[in-house]
C-alpha cells in the first residue's frame, strides 16, 4: 500500500508543470555550482602549490647568510585546499590564506580572498552546499505543503481515509513519493560529484574522501528528510494549504536566513572577539613581563647563568658555543608560550562562538548542518586552525634550527655567516601539513550529529502524530 501511495504522489508531482520548472532550475544551479566549484578548487590548488614551491625555493636558496637574518626573511605557508572545497567552500573566502613565518613573530593568517570580491559576494557563493542548505528545503516545502491540506481542500482526503490505512503507511507513502521526486533531481548531481572526485590522484590528502563524502550524503539526507517530515506535519495540521505554505516558508526563512545572522551576533555578544591591536598589545606586554610574572630580562639572565654553569665557565668569552644563539632561542621560547596563550585563546573564542551557533541549531537545523558540512568538506574553522597551527610548528622548527646553528657553529660576539645549507634542513610546510583526523573532527562535532538526528526524529514524530489525528 505504501508503494501505491508513493507512486500516486510521485506521478502527481512529476506531471506538475511547476515541479518541472523547479527541478530544471535546481538541477541547472547545482550543476553550475559543482562544475564552477571544481574549477575554483583546481585553481586554488594550482595557485597554492605554485606559490608554496616558489617561496620554499626562495627560502632554501638564500645562500651564505647569517641564520638569524635568514629567519627574519623567513618563509610563507599557503593554505592548502581539500578536494571537497568544490562542494562547500565554507569559511574559505573569509580566512587568511597566507602566514608569514618569520623570526620572533607569530603572524596571523592574512590576505582574505573576500577582500578581492565585490559586495555582491555577501549574498553567498553559489556552491553545492548553499543550494542544498537553502534551496532544497524550499523545494521540498513546495512539493509537499499540499500533501494533506490539498487532499482536504479537494475533498479527496475523505476517500483516502475511508481506505482505513494506518497512519504510518499513509505518512511513509507520501514521504517516499515526494522523496523520490527530489531524488531524481539530486542523483545526477551526486553522480557528477562522485565522478569529479574519482578523477583525483590517490594520495594521502584524499584518503578519507569516500568516508567524508558518505557522511556528507548522510547529513544532507537527514536534513532534507527533516524538512520533508516537517512539511508533511504542517500540511496535516494546518487546514488550509495557503496557511501551511505561509507557516513553512516562515520556518524556512527563519532557519536559513535569520538564525545564522542572529547566532553570529549573539555569540559575538557572549564571547566578544578582541581587536587585533589589543591582542598584539597584550602579546608585547606578556612577552616583556612574562605570563608567570618573571620578566624577560630575568629569564635571559637565568639562561645565561645556566649556560655558563653547563660549560663550567665564568666568562662568556670562554664559552665553546655562542650565547647569541642561546639568547635568541631563549627569547623565542618565552614568546612561544605567550603566542600559544593568545592565539590558541583566540581559537578557543572562535570555537566557543561556533558552539553557541551550534546550540542555536536546536531551533534552526541549518546551523548544525552547516558546521558539519564545512567540517567534512575541510573548509571549517578546525581545518583553518590546523593550517595556522601547522605553520606555527614549522616556524618554530625553523627558528630553533637557525638558533642552534648559530649557537653551535659560532662564538659569542662573532658575526657568523653560515654557508646556507642550514636553510634546507628546515621542514617544509607542505610535507608537514596533515588535515585534521576525521575521527577527531567528528568527536568535536558529535553535538551536531545528535541535534540533526533529534530534528529528524522530532519531525518524524510530529508528522506521525499529525497524520494519526488527521481530521477530514
Amino acid at each position: 500500500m505504501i508503494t501505491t501511495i508513493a507512486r500516486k504522489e510521485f506521478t502527481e508531482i512529476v506531471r506538475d508543470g511547476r515541479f518541472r520548472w523547479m527541478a530544471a532550475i535546481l538541477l541547472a544551479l547545482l550543476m553550475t555550482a559543482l562544475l564552477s566549484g571544481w574549477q575554483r578548487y583546481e585553481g586554488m590548488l594550482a595557485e597554492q602549490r605554485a606559490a608554496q614551491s616558489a617561496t620554499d625555493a626562495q627560502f632554501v636558496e638564500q645562500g651564505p647568510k647569517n641564520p638569524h637574518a635568514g629567519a627574519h626573511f623567513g618563509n610563507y605557508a599557503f593554505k592548502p585546499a581539500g578536494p571537497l572545497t568544490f562542494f562547500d567552500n565554507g569559511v574559505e573566502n573569509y580566512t587568511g590564506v597566507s602566514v608569514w613565518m618569520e623570526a620572533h613573530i607569530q603572524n596571523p593568517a592574512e590576505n582574505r580572498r573576500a577582500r578581492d570580491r565585490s559586495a555582491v559576494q555577501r549574498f553567498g557563493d553559489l556552491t553545492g552546499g548553499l543550494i542544498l542548505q537553502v534551496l532544497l528545503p524550499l523545494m521540498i516545502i513546495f512539493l509537499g505543503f499540499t500533501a494533506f491540506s490539498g487532499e482536504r481542500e479537494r475533498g479527496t482526503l475523505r476517500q483516502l481515509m475511508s481506505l482505513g490505512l494506518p497512519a504510518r503507511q499513509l505518512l511513509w507513502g507520501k514521504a517516499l513519493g515526494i522523496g523520490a521526486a527530489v531524488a531524481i533531481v539530486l542523483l545526477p548531481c551526486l553522480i557528477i560529484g562522485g565522478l569529479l572526485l574519482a578523477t583525483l590522484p590517490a594520495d594521502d590528502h584524499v584518503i578519507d574522501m569516500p568516508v567524508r563524502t558518505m557522511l556528507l550524503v548522510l547529513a544532507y539526507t537527514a536534513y532534507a528528510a527533516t524538512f520533508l517530515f516537517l512539511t508533511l506535519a504542517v500540511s496535516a495540521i494546518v487546514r488550509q494549504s495557503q496557511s501551511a505554505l505561509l507557516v513553512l516558508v516562515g520556518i524556512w526563512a527563519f532557519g536559513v536566513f535569520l538564525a545564522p545572522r542572529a547566532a553570529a551576533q549573539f555569540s559575538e555578544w557572549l564571547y566578544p572577539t578582541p581587536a587585533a591591536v589589543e591582542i598584539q598589545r597584550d602579546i608585547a606586554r606578556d612577552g616583556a613581563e612574562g605570563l608567570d610574572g618573571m620578566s624577560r630580562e630575568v629569564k635571559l639572565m637565568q639562561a645565561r647563568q645556566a649556560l655558563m654553569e653547563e660549560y663550567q665557565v665564568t666568562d662568556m668569552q670562554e664559552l665553546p658555543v655562542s650565547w647569541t644563539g642561546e639568547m635568541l632561542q631563549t627569547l623565542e621560547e618565552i614568546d612561544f608560550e605567550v603566542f600559544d596563550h593568545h592565539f590558541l585563546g583566540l581559537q578557543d573564542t572562535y570555537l566557543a562562538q561556533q558552539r553557541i551557533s551550534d546550540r542555536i541549531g536546536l531551533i534552526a537545523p541549518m546551523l548544525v548542518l552547516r558546521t558539519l558540512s564545512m567540517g567534512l568538506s575541510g573548509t571549517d574553522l578546525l581545518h583553518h586552525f590546523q593550517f595556522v597551527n601547522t605553520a606555527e610548528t614549522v616556524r618554530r622548527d625553523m627558528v630553533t634550527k637557525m638558533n642552534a646553528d648559530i649557537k653551535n657553529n659560532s662564538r659569542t660576539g662573532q658575526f657568523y655567516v653560515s654557508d646556507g645549507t642550514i636553510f634546507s634542513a628546515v621542514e617544509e610546510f607542505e610535507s608537514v601539513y596533515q588535515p585534521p583526523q576525521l575521527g577527531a573532527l567528528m568527536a568535536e562535532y558529535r553535538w551536531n550529529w545528535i541535534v540533526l538526528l533529534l530534528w529528524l526524529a522530532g519531525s518524524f514524530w510530529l508528522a506521525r502524530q499529525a497524520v494519526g489525528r488527521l481530521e477530514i
Partner: protein
Amino acid sequence: MFRMMMGHEIRLLASSSALGWLLAGIAAAVLFAAWSGGQTLQQQTQAAQVARDIEAGKKAKLREGVVAYEQYVEENGLEFQTYKAMHRAPRPGESPEGTSAGMVGTDRVKEYAVLPPSGLAAFAVGQSDLLTNHIAVTMRNLAHVTEKSEFQNPLHLLSGSFDLAFVVIYLLPIFVLGLSYNMLSSEKEQGTLAMILAHPVSLRELMASKLVSRIGILVGVVLAAGLVSLLLVGNQLGSAETWLRFLAWAALTALYCLFWFALALLVNARGRSSENNGITLAGLWLLLVVVVPTLVSLIASIIYPPPSRMEMIAAGRAASQEAEANAAKSLDEFYFDHLEFVPNPEDKIQDFFAHFLAREQAVSDAVAPVQQRFREQLNQQQQLVNRFQFVSPAIMMRLALNEVSGTSVDRYEHFEDQVLAFRDRWTEYFMTRFLQNVPLRSADYEKFPAFDYQPEPLALSLARIAASAIGLAVLSMLLLLAGANSLRRFVVAASTG
C-alpha cells in the same frame, strides 16, 4: 469613494490579528538589527581608538627618552647625536632610539589613519567588516601597510550581519508578500469580490485602495522603526548630512517595498488561487534575493578573476631577495630615488638600516603594480555588478544601502587612496631626516605628519546611489503598469453557465 474604500481596507487590516503580529515582528527585527549594527560599529570604533591610544603611548615614551637625552646633552655641554643601532639598550647619556628618524618613521611610531563612520554606519555593516577602518602607516613596505586585517571570526563574516540592511533586503519583502500575496485572490475565493464590484467601484480602484493602505501601514511602521533606530544608534545626529543619508535610506526602503507590492499585484492579477500566488511569490523572492545575486557574483568573479595574492607574495619576496643579493646596487638605486635629500654622495649611510629601507623600497616597487591590478580587477567586477544590478532589486538595494551607510567599497578605496598619499608624506618627513642624518628632537614630535581624513562630498555618494534608485523606481513602475494592465483581463467570477 476612494477614501471610503481606503477606510474599509484599513479597518479590515486592523481587525486581523495577523497584521498586528506582522508589524510587531518587523518592528522588532528593525530594532534588533539596530542594536546589532550598533554593536558591530562600536566594536570597530573602539578598535580604532585602542590602536590610536597604544601608539600615542609609545610615542610619548620615545619622546620622554629624547627629552631626557636633551637635558643630559645640555647639562653636560655635549653634541646632540643620532641614535646608533646596537645590540643593547642605550645607557643614560647615549642617544636613544627616539632620535633616529629612520627608526621612528619605520615602525617605532605608527600613525593610525582612521576612517570615521558615517552618521548611518550602524544601518549597514556592508564591507566594513572586511576592510579595516584603521590602517597603521609606517615606512614599511606597501604590502605590510595595507594587508593587515581584523581578527573577526570567519564564520561570522560568512554568516553576515544582522543589520538593518539585512532586515530591509531579506525580511521586509517576506512581510510585504505575507501582507499582499492573497489581497485579490482571497476576495475572489471568499466570494466577496463580486459583491464589492457590484458597487460603483472599478477593480483598479479597489486594488489601488488595497495597495495604498498596505504600503502606507507597512512603510510607515518600517520608517518609524528606522527613525527610532537612527536616534538610538546613529552618529552625528546634529549634522545635516546624517539626516540626508537617513532620507535617502527611507526613500530607498519605500521604493523597495513598492517593488515587492507591485510584484504581488502583478501575480494577483493573473487570477490564480492564493496558494498558487504564494508559491509563485516565494519562488520569485528566492530567485531575486538569493539565486540571481549569487549568480551575478559568480559571473563577476569568473569574468574578472582577482589576481593571486599568493603570487603577489612570492613576487614581493623575489624582489626583496634580489635587492639583498645586489645590496650595493639596490642601495645605490635607493639613494638615487632620494637623491635630492642626500647632502653629498660621500655621506651615504652604509648601515644595516639603510639596507633594510632599500629592501623595503624594492618590495614596495614590486608589489605596487600587482596591488594596482587587484584594484583594477575589483573595480571591473564592481562595474559589472553595477551594470547587472538591475536584474535584482536586492543587488540594487545592497549597493545603495552600503553607499548610504558609508560602508561601500568605493568609500574605503577613497580612504585607502588618502592613506597611501599620507604614507608618502610620512615617508618624506622621516626619510629626509634619516638620509641627511638629522636627529629628531622632542619638539619635532609635535610636527610629525598627521592623518587628516577628507570626507567624500555627499553628492558623490548620492550620485552613485542614483542608478540603483532610478532602477528600482523604473522597475516598480513597470510592474505596476503591467499589473494594472492585467487587471483589465481579470475574470471576477467564473461563469457558471
